[in-house]
């Protein structure tokens, strides 16, 4: 089962701590390689906490574990970092700013 979602990225305490231990370090990668999905969408898509889901955008594909998060339905969250950046496109609409918050992604259970 798959569905489209709006991806937002953002900072977390774990992501910041991981950066100090080294961007690309195991701690940084672990802190930035998961997706938060709201309980309603988790139930609807039959996804359990910790289950690997596949995300696709026009620019990339990643497989990450899912976590239940406090979000509205249709919105998913990944901490800023390499995983999210594989999905965010390069169109800046003339502003220099990519769509770090608002990227359309397809999510499926695998």
């Amino acid at each position, binding site marked *: 089962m798959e569905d489209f979602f709006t991806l937002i990225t953002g900072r977390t305490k774990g992501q910041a*701590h991981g950066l100090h231990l080294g*961007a690309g370090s195991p701690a940084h990668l672990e802190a930035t390689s998961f997706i938060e999905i709201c309980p309603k969408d988790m139930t609807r898509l039959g996804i359990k906490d910790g289950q690997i889901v596949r995300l696709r955008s026009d620019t990339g594909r990643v497989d990450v574990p899912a976590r239940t998060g406090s979000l509205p339905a249709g919105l998913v969250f990944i901490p800023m970092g390499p995983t999210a950046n594989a999905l965010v496109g390069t169109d800046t609409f003339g502003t*220099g700013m990519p769509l770090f918050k608002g990227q359309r992604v397809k999510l499926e259970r695998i």
Partner: protein
Amino acid sequence: MSALIENVTCKFCGCLCDDITVEVEGDRILKAKRACPNGRSMFLNYDPASRNPLVDGQIVEWDEAISATVDILNGADSPLIYGLSSTSTEAQRKAVELADRLGAIIDSTSSVCHFPTSLAVQAVGEATCTLGEVRDRADLLIFWGCNPLVSHIRHFSRYSANAKGLLTPNGRKDRTLVVVDVRPTQTAKAADHFLQIEPGTDYEVLTSLRVLIQGQNIEHGVGGLSAEQLQELAHMMKTCRYGVVFFGMGLTMTPGRNYNVAELFTLGAELNRFNRFSVIPMRGHGNVAGADQVLTWLSGYPTAVSFARGYPQFGPGEFTTVDVLSRGEADAALIVASDPIAHLPWMAAKNLERIPTILMAPTANCSSKVAKVILPTACYGIDAPGTSYRMDNVPLRLRAVFPNTRPTDEEILSRIIKAVQPC
């Protein structure tokens, strides 16, 4: 034998907390008293050991590394200088001088954080104040699309929600705290009022507030908020003594970007008909505000500047790094105190693998893996002194808590400037 050094400024984020006491033993920092977890992690994990540069993965002397850097830059038709937000103001000046000499494009990390804010300032101006005024006077604080309890952890205690000041002697009790966001963040949980709006509706909500504060009415809700919620917020904004909106990436990274921010700045300016009202961006890196300042002094523009024609040209979407890299328009890159491989969309960042890239940074990062030349410089605020701009554009001095064993960004950039051929 350890030593205590007081009043050290933490340069991790735009708060620039300047009340840190660090305990130093030899070349290691043992404690960073009063620092937040982010700042403490920066101080305690820093390794100031002497390190030589690398060229093609081989350890070389500084002269050889600078020579390799100069060869790359002299051989490029369209070099890009990127980063700058975690270096000193003094080094930023040198980076702009180098860009001018090379005819390069220069762009700070601001282009992927608050550059839409700069575009909005250019369009409509800003009503602003210092964080000292916020602490002393503000009785209404609105955090819009930002999460300071995660990203700027001491903002509440030093400057805003919990800070005690001249007209706010009881701190949190003297202020009303509102959070506007699309999700219930940690900051939202600390608020008196959390207004959860639908994603991508910031502009509409801000326009509705402008309508309301001008005395017009709205009959229907907007962006997931009821008409009553909007009316209540507009009433708070009009009747407070001193209001401040802090905003973050929730406005600058979402659809609408600079238009969202311009609408907020306009609302803030209009509220000054009723009381004092300011709008302040939550700047991320410790001296990203300084990068905007320095580039503006020297070129007239805050970032996204090309010197290719011999004079500064401003080009949002043209000379901004994600656009330059994704179109393959740079044929060499000098990265200063930044990590584009970790922080830019991969489809743009991966082009740094295809061009000769020089990385100037105090610690190894993801961009080290693609850099042809690595210049391990000292860290401003830990083993090098310098100047940094707080998020409210107040410049503060960064102290060195022990002597540097590696050269500073400013020193290395000065050597490169002397050695490169002018375009």
